[in-house]
Structures are given as C-alpha cells and as structure tokens.
C-alpha cells in the first residue's frame, strides 16, 4: 500500500501484477479488496471478471466482464482500505482518523502506541504517517482479532511498520520497554481512564495522547484522570457532511408568456441531454444540497499533552 521505495510508488508505468492487492470499484459505496491471482475470477452482479485480464493493465483502469459489465481497479490507500476492510469491531472513519493524526502531531519517524487494534482502520493510517522510519505498536486483548489484524497488515504490505501485540492494556498497561519512548498514544478502550496512567509513563515529555470514546461519561472520567499529569486537555467531535449535485433546469415564471398573468409557469424548456453542459454551460445550472442522511455521531476525541517539568 505504501511505497517503501520511490521506484515502487504508483506511476504511469506501474502495471498490475500477479499477487497485487487491488481495490475493485463498482460504485463509491461498493468496493472490494481483491488480491490478484492468475487463474482466479471475480464474480459480481456485472458478470465474471478474469484476473488474468487485469494483469499488465495500469491501476485506475476500467476492466470488463464476460457480460460487458465493468469495474475499475484502484491502487489501495488507507482511505480505500477503511471502506473495504472486514469489520471485526466498530471502526474509525476518515474524519476522525485524519484529525487524530494531525492533532497527535504524528510525523515520519514517530513511535506510536495504540490500543485496541480493533479492525486496524486507524492503524493503517498511523503506519502511513510514521513511515518510513517510525513504528506503530498496537495492542488488543483479543487474540484472534489481533491475528486477523496482523494478516491484514501483511496483505496491505504494512507489517514492517506495525507490530501487533496481544495484551490487556486496561488491565496491565503498556509494556515497560516503551517507557518514555512514545511520541503519541492512542486509546480506544471501554474504560480508557484505567490505561491513562500507563500512557503517561510511556510518553516523552510534551508527548500527545488521544482517547476515543463514544459516550460522554467515558470522556468525563478520562478527563478527571488526565488532570494530574496532562495539560492542554481538549475534547472534540468531528463529523462530515456530504453533498450531492444535480444538473437542473428550473422552470421560470414569465408574466408575458402565454398571455397568462404570470401565476402559471411558462412552457417547459426542452431538456437537452448528452453533451449539454460543455456546449452551452449557461443553459442549465449545477445545484448542490447536503445528502439527506449522515453519520450523526462516532465518538468524542479527547486530546492531551504530557506536562513538562523543568
């Protein structure tokens, strides 16, 4: 997923090879991760797609099924991965993920601790942010979940940046070997306040912590515990509103048309179709409105910074 070397990054000349992970795009809300394997096929409502047809094509290509249906083959990114990964737990989405990385001030070379691993949605973005020289140590007390996450990181090619541990962070804290070494700690735990003293021990001076909690009661207790060793304690909620667009011809009222007094709409203008906009962009307008449904709540993000003692 990430270019470990400049030559390996996505380019006009980087063609799909046997064994590559591709994101098969049907629609923006319908994507799937597929590992290309010569001899395999992908079957969906558009027909049967032969992997062998994909090999040698550039990423971003449109490929056709036996029935003439088509999909696009995209190079995986952490954002696309978040949309296709298998949900073993509730996951974090792009708004929270991007804000966490920015607010924790994670840059290449950072050492980051995370618990729990969950489905690895955030972990993938953490790995991108610390690459190429940093490392993410992620812990989950669920052995099978941790193993599945490890398999995923193998598949997305991030295993050199991420180490998965099976550990009950709420119960026993982070391993002592990281004491004073962590640039940032991220907690997504049911009782984060139990892990905060250990997180404080792991952080460098002025290091950053974030705790993600869906419920305000969790935030309340966490903030109480944070007071003693942390400063700059701030809680946020970040959401996304998405917009849909439509090209519209609106009916207009014209008093003189049809001899009517203007209360009746004039004749509908013929709707053009096909290449209307480009040939005559003023004849119709693009209208925008917010989508009717949205995610109304994900969780509260509480950030804090380890106090500095001189």
């Amino acid at each position, binding site marked *: 997923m990430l270019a470990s070397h400049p030559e390996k990054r996505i380019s006009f000349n980087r063609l799909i090879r046997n064994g590559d992970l591709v994101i098969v795009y049907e629609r923006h809300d319908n994507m799937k991760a597929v590992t290309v394997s010569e001899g395999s096929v992908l079957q969906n409502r558009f027909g049967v797609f032969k992997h062998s047809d994909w090999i040698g094509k550039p990423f971003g290509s449109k490929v056709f099924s036996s029935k003439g249906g088509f999909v696009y083959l995209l190079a995986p990114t952490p*954002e696309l991965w978040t949309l296709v990964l298998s949900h073993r737990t509730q996951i974090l989405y792009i708004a929270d993920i991007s804000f966490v990385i920015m607010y924790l001030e994670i840059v290449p070379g950072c050492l980051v601790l995370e618990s729990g691993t969950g489905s690895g949605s955030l972990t993938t973005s953490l790995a991108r942010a610390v690459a190429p020289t940093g490392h993410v140590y992620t812990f989950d007390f669920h052995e099978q979940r941790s193993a599945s996450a490890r398999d995923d990181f193998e598949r997305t090619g991030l295993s050199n940046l991420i180490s998965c541990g099976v550990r009950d962070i709420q119960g026993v804290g982070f391993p002592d070997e990281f004491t004073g070494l962590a640039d940032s700690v991220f907690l997504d735990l049911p009782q984060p306040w139990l892990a905060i003293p250990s997180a404080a021990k792991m952080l460098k001076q002025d290091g950053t912590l974030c705790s993600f909690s869906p419920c305000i009661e969790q935030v309340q207790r966490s903030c109480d515990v944070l007071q003693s060793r942390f400063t700059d304690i701030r809680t946020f909620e970040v959401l996304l509103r998405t917009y849909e667009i439509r090209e519209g011809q609106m009916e207009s009222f014209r008093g003189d048309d049809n001899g009517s007094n203007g209360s009746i709409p004039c004749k509908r203008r013929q709707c053009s179709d096909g290449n209307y906009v480009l040939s005559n962009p003023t004849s119709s307008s693009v209208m925008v409105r917010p989508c009717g449904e949205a995610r109304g709540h994900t969780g509260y993000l509480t950030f804090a910074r380890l106090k500095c003692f001189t």
Partner: protein
Amino acid sequence: MSSENNNNNKSRMTWEGCSVLLDINDGDRLVFARLSPAAKLKIGNKNCSLQPLIGCPFGTVFQLDSSSDAAAFLSPFQSKGSVNNTEEIKDGQFQVESKDGQPSGESKDNRSLIDNNTAQSLTGEDIEDMRRQGAKGNEIIEALIANSATFDKKTSFSQEKYRLKKQKKYAPKVLIRRPVARSICEAYFKKYPLKIGFLRVDTLSLLLSMANVSSNSDILVVDMVGGLLTGAVAERLGGTGFVCNSYLGQAPSMDIVRIFNLSDEICKRIVRTSVSDLLSQKESPEQNPKHDVGSLESQSNDQMNASVSMEEISHSSENVISDVGAENAENSSFPALRACKAIKAGEKASQEMIDSWKENGFSSLIIAAPDLDTWTLVKDLLPLLSNSAPFAIYHQYLQPLATCMHNLQLEKMAIGLQITEPWLREYQVLPSRTHPCMQMSAFGGYILSGTKISSS
C-alpha cells in the same frame, strides 16, 4: 532506529535559531519567533529577552518576572503543587475541585456582589510602590486578593477567574509550543484566517489524508494559502519524495513554510514550478503556442523571485532580532519571520524532475487556491497525475467545487467523487458541567475529493 530517535528527541528541545510558537496567557496572544540570544519579546510594556528559552523542552511554561524597574526576564514557571493540580484552564473557564475530586458543594452565589468599584482597597499607587520595593507578580496578586472585600464571597469558580485575570496582568505566562502543521494552522485560523484562506485544522488534515500524503510520494500542490499546505505536506513526507508547489503567473508567497522547523533534508524536498512549465513539457510548441508564451513569462517571473528571496535571506542572516513579530501581533496579524536562517525550501524544480513527473505522473494532487477557477485548473492538472492517484481540492465556496465535480463526471476523468464539509465541535468537560463550547467555528470550508482514472 536509535539515530532516528535521537533526531526526534532533539526536535523536542529548543535550540538557537529554532522557530517557536509562543502562547502568551493561554492563547490570548500567539507569536511566532525565532530564538536567539538577542531576540526580544514585548509583553505588556516590558521587553524581555528570549535567551532563557533556548535549550528548553517544548511545552515549558515561563513566567514573566518584573519586579522593580530592572529589565523583565522570563523564568521557568514553578507550579505550586496544590494550586496547579486542581486548576485546569479550559477555554477561559476554570475547573476547581475539592480534594475528593467532586465539585465542592457551593452555596455561595452572586447575590451580595455590588458593582460599585469599592471592593478593592489597594490603589494603583500602592501597587506601583510594591513593585518598586521589589514585589514579584505573585506577591502582588496575593496582596490584591487579601485586600479585596468581596473575594471570600465569590464562588470558588469566580475566585479562580479573579486569580487568573490578575495573573495575566501581573505575572503573564509564556508557553513554548512546537511550530507544526497543527499549531501553525490553529494559530493562523484564530488570529489571521485570511492569510490561510480560512483553512481550518480539521479541513487541512482531511486534505492530507484524502490525497494519501505519505513518504516517498510526489505530491503536486497549488498552495495559495501562504505556504501552510506546502509545509504540512513536507512535514508528512519527512525528507522523502517531493512536494511540488505549482502556480500560475508569479510564484505565491510561501512565508509559512519558514515557520515550520523543517530540516534541510525536508526543505530540499520542497520545489516549485509554474503550471505552464509543467504543461508545456507535455505538448509540442506548434500544437499550443499559448503555453509557450506563458512559460517564458513565468520564467522571467521566477528569476525575479529568485533574486528577491536571495536578498531577503542575506538581509535576514545579519538581522536576527527582527524575528520576533510581537509588536504587530496585537494587530491580529503575524508579521512574517523576516529574519530566518537560509533554508532553501522552494527551489525551482529542475528540468530533470519535471521530465520524471511527466513520465511517471504525480502520486496525488492538493489544491487550495481560493482565487483560481477550480475547473480550468483541475482540467489542466489532473492529467499530470498517475492513474488511480487520489486528489483533494479545497474551497471556501461550494459552487466552484460543484461545477468541477459535474464536469469531471461528464468527462469521465475521475471516480469516487465526493464533496464534503467537515464540522468540528469542541466540548467543555467539567464535573457536572459538560457541554459543547459556547463559541464554535461554524465553517471550515469544502473539499472535493476523488480518484483519477485511466483515460484510455
């Protein structure tokens, strides 16, 4: 790994010549400064040297000590355990807890407070006398409290509020923060949002994620937000790949890049080129003579700019004090760091680089150009991206993005198109008094994102 860690640790301490963000009195004033033994910062009517700040861990709090008429100086703030462990400043409000961590059952209220200006028995002259006799800021505050007839009648919340107000005046605090994308964006958004095109920190973070900014990638940006975007991308690249700042006409200002403490290794990865230079390489001259003229013009612009920035740099290296933009900060504008070490961020991209991008394509594109027509820019720049490359376009207004999205759909240039608007709400979290903050930023801009597809 150990050498990486050392570098990382080093960036957690200030050094002579480093850029810092000084947060004075919990965000009341924010000043970008470059530390040097001669640098001075004016706080209130006192000029104090920034020398003591050199070699400190970022995150250290200093307090201004201005006893007597002698020069004021900053010394590390000593937290007096009992007071500071129970005090947390939050959006100008205070949390005070009793020993057991529960809010103390207050029975006091404001029924007996009368606003007739007689509560304080110390006069301005008394305070000046104290100062002349060498009283420290904290001693003056204690005296003011002792001489306030109403202090004891206040609730503990308003007692703390009173204490804070006096502390800000008589013993101001200065917090040293690291100038990184987050703190720089927040500081500008708070004090001088126009300069960064009203780009809020959550929007900036989305741009970086949506455009898959990661090490070893070559990111094409159009940055007309003062260099904030370029700096933020360079920070994420960490000295690998390239951020190519492209522009129409004259190269825009990249002042803000210099506020980041970017290493030379990272600065080398910031280059600039005109859009017409990028495009003219793709076409033969007779096919599109217009582009050629454009590129000639912009070349001469480049030369002009190069000489200007040279001058700026040589002028600055001899004048380090002028760094501190303290005086003007009150006017809600950050003076650019006039004096800065000669970092070479933003060199002109070599022909070799441009040819390589032409052959391989950029890994992604980010545009934050409030004054350029979005669709014409995207139509020109998108073909420069490799296939399957993500892009993210910021705008303060919705319509240019809607039109651009519509045209991208019609021309089948991209998929996964989406216009999003982030919404950010901060909370006050206090025992029994948790609620959203009373003030919030209602608008952080719009983003159009998508993935470029193969045209063949």
